[in-house]
Structure formats: C-alpha cells, structure tokens
C-alpha cells in the first residue's frame, strides 16, 4: 500500500503545486487590496480599508454594481426559462431533436469576441442589420441607437449573451428531462392531468437539480462578463454599460492603481463566493456519497 501511496503523491505534485500557487495568489490579491500599491512594483504599505472606501465613494462603482445585478436578473431568468421551454418542446420532437440542439448550441463554440463583433455590427445605428430591417418595413429608426443608447445598451448586450447561452441551458434541461422515468409522466397522463399541469407540476419540480446547476453556472458567467462589454461598447456610452470586471481591469491596467483594482476584485470575489460556495459543497456532498 505504501508503494502505491508514494506514487500517488508523486502523480499529484503538479495539481498540488497549482492549488498552492492559485490560493497563494488569491491571498496575495487579498493583501494587495489593503495597500497603497500604485505603479509597477508592489509597495507593501498598508492603508487599511481606504481602497474600499475610495471605491464605495465612486458613483461609477455603484453604476457597475447595478449593471451586474441587471445582468444577474435579465440574463439568468430568460436564459434558464427559455432553455427549459425549448427543451420541453424538443423532448417531444423525436429524431429531429438532434438537428435542433445542434443549431441552438453552436454559439457556445464561439468566443465572446466573435459574438461581440457580430452583434456590435447588427446593432450599429446607421448601417446595422437591425435598423436596416426595421427601416425596410417602414419604421423610423433615427431614434433607435441600441448599444449607442445609454438607456437600453445594457439590455441589448444581455440579449446577445442570451443568444450565445440559450443552447447551454437547453441541453442541460434536455438531458434532465430525458432522464426522467417515463412511467412518471405516463401515470400522470392516465390520471387525466393536462399537458400544462404535467409540465409545471411534474417535470419542473423533478428536475430542480438542473435549475440549480443552470442558474449557478449562468450567475458565474454574469459575474465575470468582460469580453462582451469590452468588444461591444468599451463600457460606454459614458460608463453606462460598465460592470465590475471591467472596472477592475481599467483601475488596474489603465490607471495603474493596483490597490484599488485588487479591492474591486475582492468585491467580485465576495459576490461569487456567495454563489459558488453553497454550490460546490452541494456537488462535493454528492460525490462523497457516490
């Protein structure tokens, strides 16, 4: 046994190193958030919570938080719900199902950079696809700025992320629905339950785990959304589409205010820990039992 053990540890050296480096960096970042580090070299001069209080005084910071929350609500709910409804219809389609999931899932193979480039053009007020179609059917498009309009830019961006991620929630739900025992649904049919009732009273509650996984994964995605914002609007017009990851990048790598950047990333970390820790524990619990 001892022989196997020492080999096992040897095999694990890389991952143990990686875990060590990773958590070491996390602690480092945490420490840096309390220093006055500006410029290229770290200066370990501790300044307490002043980075955080400077951050909280920024109006821009609160606009970012609000945008992150908008993403959380207007991205997760439609994507999860839309995926569920599509999956339900697809699960009744038989063989055609295979063609359809491939159509809906393909945007997941794209980079956010590609999605952003493509949609930025579609939304372009003067020569974009959307305004051209609308103009073609006689709608006055001069006031429809889409991502150039600070009032609706965030929602436009969320729509393109929805386009990319719908397939993800679709295949997740599709797998869950197909995993349900068919007797369950047959029995309900025999009892005279309507299709609607079967959908919401039987199928939906019995795939709660899929909902948990789906919403958690989407929530993590929204918390670190960066590429799309960068490509489509650079946070603009003004700071109307900025989100925390974007602010973190600008403070750190453009303003060279590493202390504040680190403080922003710690705020993000707290947000994501609130989502990830319960989920990770749930997953780990399942594994240990299995």
């Amino acid at each position, binding site marked *: 046994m001892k022989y*196997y053990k020492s080999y096992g540890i040897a095999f694990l050296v890389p991952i143990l190193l990686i875990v060590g480096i990773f958590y070491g960096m996390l602690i480092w*970042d945490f420490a840096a958030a309390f220093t006055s580090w500006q410029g290229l070299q770290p200066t370990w001069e501790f300044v307490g919570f002043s980075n955080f209080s400077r951050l909280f005084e920024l109006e821009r910071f609160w606009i970012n938080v609000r945008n992150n929350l908008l993403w959380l609500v207007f991205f997760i709910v439609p994507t999860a719900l839309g995926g569920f409804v*599509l999956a339900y219809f697809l699960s009744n389609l038989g063989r055609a199902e295979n063609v359809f999931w491939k159509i809906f899932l393909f945007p997941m193979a794209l980079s956010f950079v590609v999605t952003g*480039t493509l949609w*930025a053009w579609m939304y372009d007020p003067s020569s974009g696809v959307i305004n051209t179609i609308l103009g073609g059917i006689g709608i006055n498009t001069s006031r429809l700025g889409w991502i150039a309009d600070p009032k609706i830019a965030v929602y436009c961006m969320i729509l393109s992320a929805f386009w990319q991620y719908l397939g993800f929630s679709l295949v997740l739900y599709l797998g869950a629905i197909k995993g349900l025992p068919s007797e369950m649904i047959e029995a309900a049919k025999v009892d005279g339950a309507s299709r609607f009732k079967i959908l919401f009273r039987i199928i939906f509650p019995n795939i709660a785990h899929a909902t948990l996984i789906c919403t958690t994964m989407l929530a993590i995605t929204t918390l670190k959304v960066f590429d799309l914002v960068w490509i489509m609007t650079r946070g603009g017009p003004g700071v109307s589409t900025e989100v925390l990851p974007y602010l973190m990048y600008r403070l750190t790598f453009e303003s060279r205010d590493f202390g504040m950047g680190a403080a922003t990333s710690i705020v993000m970390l707290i947000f994501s820990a609130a989502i990830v820790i319960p989920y990770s524990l749930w997953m780990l619990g399942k594994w240990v039992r299995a």
Partner: protein
Amino acid sequence: MIFFAVFYLLPVYVLLATSFKSFAEVSLKDMWKLPQDISLDSFQIAWRGDASKGVTGLSKNFINSIYLVIPATIISSLLGSMNGYVFSKWKFRFSNLVLALIIFGMFIPYQSVLIPIVVVLQKIGLYGSIPGLIFIHCVYGVPITTLIFRNYYSTVPTELLEAAKIDGGGFLRIYRDIMLPISMPGFAVVMIWQFTSIWNDFLFGLVVAQKPSIQPITVALNNLAGSYFVEWNIQMAGALITALPPLLLYIFLGRYFMRGLLAGSLSGT
C-alpha cells in the same frame, strides 16, 4: 420551432453573406441578397492585412493561437488524467479537502488572481510571452480536466484494478496498461473542451500579451474590429476566421463538445 431556429441562425447568415462580399456590394438595401459572385477579398485582407488601409492581418495571430492552444491543451489534459486516476482510485487522507479546493478554484473569477499572475509571470520571466500564456491556461485548466477525468475513471470497476494488483501490476503499469487505453473518450471530451476555451479566451491574452506580435487571435480580432475605419465585411471575415477552428470541432465532434460543456457543470451527476 423551425421559425425560432431560423431566427437563431439569422446572425450567422448575415455573417457569411457579408464576409463573402466585396466592399462595393455591402450596401444597406442589398443586405439580404446573397453575394453576386463570391469574393474572397475580405478574407484576404483580414488574413494578410492591407498596409494601405492600416489593417494588420490575422495570420500571424492565428499561428500564435495554434502555438498556444496545442501545448496547453495536451499538457492540461495529461495532467488531468493523471490526477483523475489518483483521485478516483487511490484516495488519500486529505483527498476530499483537496478536491473541494479544486472545485471552488474552478469557479473563482479570473480577475481575483489577475494582478498576482502578472507579478508572478514577471518574476519568472514569462510575462509577455506565449509560454507564459500556456502556463496560465494550464493552471486554470487543470482543475476542470482533473474533475472530468475523476468522474470518468470512477466508472471503471475497482475489481479490475484489484485483479491487476494481485497479478503484480504496479501503480504506473495499471495506469499505462489499463486506464490509458480506455481513456480515449475522456480525452476527446477534455481536449475539445480545453481547445475551445483556450482558443476563445480573451482576458488572459489581453493582459499577458501586450506585444502585437505574440497576441492570440481573439485579441487581434478585437484590435481589428476596434478601429473605426475597418469595413464591416473585413471585420466579419476576421470574425469568421477566428471562429473557424472551434466551429469545425463543433460541427464534426458536437457530441463530445456537448459532453465537455456539461461535464464542467454537471460533474456531480
């Protein structure tokens, strides 16, 4: 359903139709028409660049991405397989704790380690180089490859290993002669997943590769699309070039792609 699917594919149609047009043909009222005669001009400019228009081609960056993605994918998949083997078959005292740390680490936003990464890479002299990017993608990729392989190997019956042990098979021999030969489906899932996510990454490339000559293709596409004077047909051609490798993988190996995607989140079930 079909209506919805058509709506879904619309952006793609636009992408294809535009990139195959010459600039003269890209006009508003003809947006819907297929290109009159298929023109590869846009692709040529997007690929090779055009000095007179100030467009830098993507070809160099395409190669950079290949140099980056292939080693990073292979290294992280192999390490994942080795770790998965230990975690599934040779549990040790703190294995669950380490596993919990890995799962948690997988979901941490990049931004929380971005600053230390830059400093660490500068210290070890890999900042601003492709090996530096390979290193980061391995650090970020190994947790997920480990988890996927751990679950994959869990389905291998333990009796098989016990029998091999009685026959005198050592730790390495069991891995080489029993586990590796049955790992191909696992490798397919993991490698497609890693290839796609590393190819599509933007943030690490942006932060680590400041020099244009080593930038991966996603960063270069952003530069191309970011300049206002680049025509849409060229941007779309660039977007298509960038999307091509993962899309090809998806078209031919879609089922594995889907499994990889789900494994990342569904590892528990």
